[in-house]
């Protein structure tokens, strides 16, 4: 078992996300994270799915996704792909601790998006490992709420983006 990132280009129609995510559930594949949004073409959406499964299973997932009529293109992103995620973290903070917490968060390029009497909310965009590190660093102060988007990813241009084409029988 290992984590695979799939980029799935689909028709932007009602029910498409349900069809895709339902397929994962039905075939017994575990979704680690899922993000969906519009693309450069308003008639298309891109779903980025992280799935925890064997290499053989990921090939089966890709074939099953292709069987969905509204799925246009599926590819597995390699380690060279640009992978980013957004998180928002609300941390307990008395006014006197604010400077300390903010300066810690700045190390991670986190932005302060809200300050209240007893809490600060940060946003941070980054590679998932980095967000994890930020979360661990802030957790001793008391994390009240946390939300992550799930990662989105794109292949790089140029040499780095070239990867062995997945062997799909056709």
């Amino acid at each position, binding site marked *: 078992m290992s984590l695979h990132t799939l980029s799935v280009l689909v028709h932007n129609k009602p029910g498409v996300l349900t069809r895709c995510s339902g397929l994962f559930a039905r075939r017994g594949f575990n979704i680690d994270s899922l993000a969906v949004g519009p693309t450069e073409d308003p008639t298309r959406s891109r779903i980025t799915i992280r799935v925890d499964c064997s290499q053989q299973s990921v090939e089966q997932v890709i074939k099953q996704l292709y069987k969905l*009529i509204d799925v246009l293109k599926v590819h597995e992103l390699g380690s060279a792909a640009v992978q980013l995620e957004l998180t928002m973290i609300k941390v307990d903070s008395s006014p006197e601790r604010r400077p300390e917490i903010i300066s810690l968060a700045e190390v991670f390029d986190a932005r302060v998006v809200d300050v209240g009497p007893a809490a600060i909310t940060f946003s941070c965009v980054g590679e998932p490992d980095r967000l994890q590190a930020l979360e661990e660093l802030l957790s001793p102060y008391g994390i009240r709420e946390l939300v992550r988007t799930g990662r989105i990813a794109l292949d790089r241009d140029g040499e780095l983006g070239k990867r062995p084409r997945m062997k*799909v029988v056709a």
Partner: protein
Amino acid sequence: MDKRNMTGAEAIIRCLEAEGVTDVFGLPGGAILPLYDAWAEHEHTIRHYLTRHEQGAGHMAQGYARATGRVGVAIATSGPGATNLVTPIADAYLDSTPIVCITGQVPTHLIGTDAFQEADIQGITMPIVKHSWLVSEVEDLPRVFREAFHIARTGRPGPVLIDIPKDVQLRRFDFAYPKQIDIPGYKPSKHGHPRQIISAAEAILAAQRPVFYVGGGTVCANVDPADLIRVADAVRMPVVTTLMAKGVFPDSHELCIGLPGMHGSKAANWALNQADLLIACGSRFDDRVTGKLDAFAPGARVIHMDVDPAEIDKNRHAEIPIVGSLEFVVPKLAEALESRRNGGPPPAAEWLDKVRAWKAEHPFRYRNSEPLKPEYVIERLRDLTADREVIWTTGVGQHQMWAAQYLQIDQPRHWLTSGGLGTMGYGVPAAIGAKVGRPDATVINIDGDGCFQMTMQELATARMYGIGAIHVVINNGWLGMVRQWQELFHAERFSETDLTMDLPDYVKLAESFGIPGFRCATVDEVDDAIRSALAVGGPAVIEARVDREEKVYPMVPAGAPSAEMIDVEWADDDNAWVEEGV
């Protein structure tokens, strides 16, 4: 094309006409009323068969589709009407049967409000359809129907669902049926890769112990049986046909070893397990064929031909995959084999002799003694109809397996059975659908008593339209296959499987529908009952009261290696054994 202003409801009828549909099966209700109103109001060329249950409509559409090779159509209303179609849709999905299901839906402004008879049928059926549509704009109807029929019948066929809210059926628009079709996300492969086909041919010619493992995909693809015979004959290799493939390679052909799997022949299972090369053709390494997958055909390389790439490597790794429509791939493989064969004796001659010897030594057999044996009834049905074209349907269970073992079928689309889903109740409506599609053929449904009771209300449909399929109830008063498992694997605790022999009285039941019923309970009575039913020339019912304890053998216990079949002790000197079957 000229555009004509009409309602959505009339447009549905025009769409069906444009697709060449001549027969549909359905049952009206509130949300589909506008369509049925248009049905009565406008002139058209489509016959509608009013069923007694929407499940019946769905299975009739399936039987029609499988018997004719055309797309079957079932119509139901919203809510319970639509959910009653779920079983046929799931059945059609697993057996790759092309059907279009049309359901009414509550008006668009009520969707999501838990309105009367509202059910999210698109959501409910999402995992079991090839594709589905909820049509919210009447202008989309022609395109959706065009796509629906195209998707249902092409590639790996399957069920599609069109859900149409009532207000969409009532709205008017300018109708034109699209000539062109463009579905960017749907491009099924047609021609297999030529290099792969050559690799396959070379592997087959080099194999010492090849087995041609033919599945139901060959029927779906309308593969010419002659092309399958060419492939097998090129190297004289044994052929096994799965439950879904029965008839596509003639049972009577000298190379046919018949049914593999849980209740298949020893010869077929041993051949698969000792093979050094499996040529899987439209088959999917289903667990009922392979038994314990890890132990299946351990020494074999695999050539896997299928139109669905997702079948390749799903259960068993294929060394030589060929993705393409089998109607194109099989003849090309035959050509490749014939052009490369070097004239000498086929390398696998000894192997064929060995497999045939197994077949001769271990036929399907039963002890023909009192009480009446179900196998005997099926053999008499086979023999007394040998002079005519018969399309057989079955329910699911013991009778289905005996029918698979003892009927001899030599043409595709003459054996209609629920293989993947194992749907009890399939037999009666499937037979009615088949007879509607093939009125010239004799249609016989070999059913069990448990199965028959699930869909027997469709006898009313049969009677109303004079749809003359013959329904044979193999009555042992049990949910027989479940009972068999209880006897063999659950210490004879016959938990909730006794249906009793006399409930209902099948002859009186048939007569209450105005259908002649015939009963046989002894060997002497069987021929009379069959001849009488065949002479009716309309729908008829035969009740065969059979041995309550007869079991289906041989048997691979679920999850066991398929080479290890359990069987009863056969005494060689016992003259009562009948060694027949195919």
